[in-house]
């Protein structure tokens, strides 16, 4: 009789352990896919804009505060190194906040009459993250610059 009860207890414990293991696994998988989504998010948005082009590092610079106290308005300046002539100029610049729910922040379209491929604006940042700027040149070359910003209070609503 005593033996039987013990077996029962063991079984139940096994069952509980097994169930929690399954639950933990389920959480892990959902977490994993969520993270993958957030990661591929901005890469997909970038692909939609520049196609399969592989951006080279350099030529693009970003000016951003190292620590943004208020994520609602983070001033930023993006610029690309270019002579801005009719033959050789920056056509487009796309700015992404890689950790925002919608990563694509702004697209800037320059012409040789812009004189300089520089623009300043203010963006919202939800959390500490990398800000990426991608420049598309008139000859089709693509360059990329990156900068990390630490955000104290996020600014994406919620």
């Amino acid at each position, binding site marked *: 009789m005593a033996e039987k009860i013990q077996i029962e207890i063991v079984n139940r414990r096994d069952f509980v352990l097994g169930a929690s293991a399954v639950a933990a696994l389920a959480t892990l998988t959902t977490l994993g896919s969520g993270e993958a989504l957030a990661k591929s998010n901005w890469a997909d948005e970038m692909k939609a804009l520049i196609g399969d082009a592989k951006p080279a590092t350099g030529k693009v610079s970003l000016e951003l505060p190292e620590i943004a106290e208020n994520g609602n308005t983070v001033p930023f300046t993006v610029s690309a190194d270019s002579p801005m002539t009719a033959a050789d100029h920056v056509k487009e610049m796309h700015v992404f*906040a890689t950790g925002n729910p919608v990563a694509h*922040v*702004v697209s800037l379209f320059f012409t040789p009459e812009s*004189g*300089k491929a520089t*623009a300043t*604006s203010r963006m919202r940042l939800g959390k500490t993250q990398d800000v990426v700027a991608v420049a598309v040149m008139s000859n089709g070359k693509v360059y990329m610059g990156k900068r990390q910003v630490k955000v104290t209070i996020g600014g994406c609503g919620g």
Partner: protein
Amino acid sequence: MAKPRVKVPKTAKAGDIILIKTLISHKMENGLRKDKKTGKPIPRKIISDFSAKFNGKEVFKAKLHGGISANPYLAFNAKVPASGEFEFTWTEDTGKTWSAKKSITVS
């Protein structure tokens, strides 16, 4: 609601690259915020397009998204070969537009 403000230098030398600063008051509701009372999401309503023309020719254009802060500020450059007029247009995603004009004398 929205009122555009633009700063363009009054004079410049031919071929100069000038700095133009623009600002428009707009909430830039990104569609992610929720109404605190009802819990329902507030629909997206942003300025989605901006363009700057000099004597009728486009010099700079921008497509804005929800990641741009309220009261969108944009500063950019333009090369001025001759005197003329800048025309700036802001377009909301509802189709509503605002515009401003500024002239510059080039010597």
